[in-house]
């Protein structure tokens, strides 16, 4: 890529990201769905637990169940809304596929990090038995887990945007792709609740970084074929 093209490409990525942010602030399509979903799911968990003391591994798993289904209810909007409103073709006309992919990925990263921060705060406040004893392991797990979620969600959203059964297809397609990530982040979250030192969770973080790099690279390479025609 020539240097002039590179600068323009970066501006284009920023333009797509800012358009999505302003669109979200105006319509609140994704944020409303995500927040309501998280509150509802945590309320159901509290009702089902009643005053029982669940073990940390169960509570860690439940946290990621909330995050998984919360993310599934809102992260597909980036591409689905473009298709439903008929603006996907306009976007194809305005920016090269790689700029569209990274603009949408950036928006999903911001959205999923904000969602996860909200979910974790609510979960820590309301679920009595869930105590984080190793803050650094927990923070890194949440950060890398969020990035992995955003990377997977972006490419799956692009794939399902043109299908007729978008709503149901999204979590179904996401699950096998996110399963390795979920297994590792649930385990790392359990380690954080048990007070494991950072060095002990090193293997999990190496896996998460590899997962993000591989998935983002593959998505970047394949996106043009998904996005065009």
């Amino acid at each position, binding site marked *: 890529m020539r240097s002039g093209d590179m600068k323009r490409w970066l501006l284009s990525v920023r*333009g797509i990201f800012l358009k999505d942010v*302003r*669109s979200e602030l105006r319509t609140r399509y994704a944020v409303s769905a995500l927040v309501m979903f998280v509150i509802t799911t945590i309320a159901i968990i509290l009702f089902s637990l009643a005053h029982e003391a669940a073990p940390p591994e169960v509570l860690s798993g439940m946290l990621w169940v909330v995050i998984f289904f919360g993310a599934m209810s809102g992260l597909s909007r980036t591409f689905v809304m473009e298709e439903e*409103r008929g603006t996907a073709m306009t976007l194809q*006309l*305005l*920016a090269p596929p790689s700029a569209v992919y990274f603009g949408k990925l950036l928006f999903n990263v911001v959205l999923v990090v904000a969602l996860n921060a909200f979910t974790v705060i609510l979960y820590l406040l309301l679920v009595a038995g869930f105590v984080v004893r190793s803050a650094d392991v927990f923070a890194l797990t949440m950060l890398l887990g969020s990035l992995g979620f955003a990377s997977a969600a972006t490419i799956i959203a692009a794939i399902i945007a043109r299908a007729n059964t978008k709503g149901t297809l999204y979590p179904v397609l996401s699950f096998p792709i996110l399963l390795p990530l979920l297994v590792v982040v649930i385990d790392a979250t359990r380690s954080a609740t048990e007070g494991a030192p950072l060095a002990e969770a090193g293997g999990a973080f190496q896996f998460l970084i590899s997962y993000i790099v591989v998935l983002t690279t593959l998505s970047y390479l394949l996106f043009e074929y998904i996005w*065009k025609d």
Partner: protein
Amino acid sequence: MSEPLTVRAEGLRMVFNRRVIFDGVHFTLGATQTLLISGRNGAGKSTLIKIIAGLLTPAAGSLKFSGEQGIFVRQSLVGLVAPYLSLYDEFSAEENLQHIAAMRGLPYDRDRAHDLLRRMALFSRKDDAVHTYSSGMKQRAKYAAALLHAPPVLLLDEPMANLDGDGTATVRAIMDEHRREGLLIVATNETGDVDRCDERVDLNALR
């Protein structure tokens, strides 16, 4: 000095679900020339426009812009107005133009944007959300969006759709101006929409 802009199509063929839409489309268009694409409903006029705009890939054949290089070639060269393109309904006309410039990776030229909105008779409504516009106003807004980056190649698919008498006259004036400076490609059933053309592709004869 850069070479003059030309668009050359050789043996374009398009197939949907094993059905041949058209086959053997050839044309060469140079600066200040106009191409008229005609054909009955379903003949593939919009499909051919999409191929020229880079939105579809032909099943066979090639379409080249002279001196084509870099990843923003089509985005820089082409402006398209078509019924299947939509603006962002939640934004106003001016916000749409701002975002369109940003997504193209270009600075927003406020003076040019305002000139275009005035010309398309939208300036007084530039701050209203596009979802409050009539279909004719949306069509006018699409012209402002397509012309914002001053593209040398203007592609118009059913250019007069939803426009009233004043809108039609404005679009005719835009077409005349563009003919003097760049390349104009028009797909329409109404051959009266185009006063004169240098090349013509009749898709009825290319199935």
